[in-house]
């Protein structure tokens, strides 16, 4: 099992490094046609792997950055910054390569599961640490919306200054979440270590 996991993770990392070497840092960076083709392929893969809605929301996330890239690219082009005259062409390449590299890495990382990480050849103590962290994530995620709702009802945190009241609310949320998770992690750690010691004694 361990060998398969190492092989799988190795292949994923080789694919990621190859992509970045070929299209971001390497020989195909300058070709706008290849970048356009890569962008179309990666977006198609994204739709197949997730959904059309997911692909659209990701493009919406990238759009403001792509627009600001274009604005600064145009400014640099007209200024001929550092004596360069290819700012516009370079900006257009970046407008395609930024979303495609973002989506490509996102898709590949989804092939790595939590179980793969647990099956890596690591010590039992680290494994317990990882399990505790995952359980803390799940508990924290559930409790966060409840804490947030509760804080919205708290009159002391309502102020005419919206930024101030938001900062106060989220500061309280961070403290509440930290105090809650600290106790939960201590308990989970104690239980897991007891269980591990008990099983170890039974097997002995």
């Amino acid at each position, binding site marked *: 099992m361990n060998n398969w996991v190492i092989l799988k993770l190795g292949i994923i990392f080789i694919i990621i490094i190859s992509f970045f070497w070929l299209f971001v840092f390497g020989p195909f960076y300058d070709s706008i046609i290849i970048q356009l083709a890569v962008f179309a392929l990666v977006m198609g893969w994204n739709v197949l792997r997730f959904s059309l809605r997911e692909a659209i929301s990701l493009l919406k996330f990238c759009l403001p950055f792509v627009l600001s890239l274009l604005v*600064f690219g145009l400014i640099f082009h007209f200024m001929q910054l550092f004596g360069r005259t290819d700012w516009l062409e370079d*900006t257009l390449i970046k407008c395609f390569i930024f979303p495609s*590299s973002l989506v490509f890495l996102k898709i590949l990382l989804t092939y790595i599961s939590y179980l793969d990480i647990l099956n890596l050849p690591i010590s039992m103590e680290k494994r317990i640490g990882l399990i505790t962290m995952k359980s803390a994530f799940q508990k924290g995620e559930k409790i*966060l919306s409840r804490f947030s709702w509760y804080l919205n009802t708290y009159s002391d945190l309502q102020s005419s200054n919206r930024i101030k009241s938001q900062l106060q609310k989220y*500061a309280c949320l*961070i*403290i509440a*979440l930290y105090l809650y*998770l600290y106790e939960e992690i*201590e308990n989970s750690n104690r239980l897991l270590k007891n269980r591990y010691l008990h099983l170890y004694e039974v097997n002995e």
Partner: protein
Amino acid sequence: MKNIKTAFVALIVVVALITLWIRIPLPSRGYFNFGDVAVVFSGLVLGSLARKRNFWWGAGAGGIGSALADIIGGYGMFAPITLIAKGLEGGFCALASSRHKFGRWVLLLLGGAAMVACYFIAEVLMPNFGLQGAVSEIIPNLIQAGGGIAGGVLAFTAYKKIVRD
């Protein structure tokens, strides 16, 4: 609340969850997230707990928590830069924890400045961002750093009162 290893794991989760959950959209790329508030808070808390290597505890919680949020949120491309940038911010905040007044504020501002500078340098070096992308990110990152320091110090001051009582 004295076990630094438990606090470290708890704060990694706090930083990741707060970064993922609370986002306010910005006109430039992405959003202002309260993750920076959590990074500053975790640095200050771990700095007050650690007897030695304050910097590395703060850097670990801030960097790993924020990089995890990038990976879980689907923005894994930013994870390596985030690990270093937020790590530096958290590390400086942990160092600030043991200082008072002027020294503390200088270290907190250094942390924020290190985060902004780190993103800028890394983005200039990455061809898919370039100078155009890096320049457009400066102002959002400065807002993020300033908000993070204000909120983080507020949270830490309140936390110290709770722990003391």
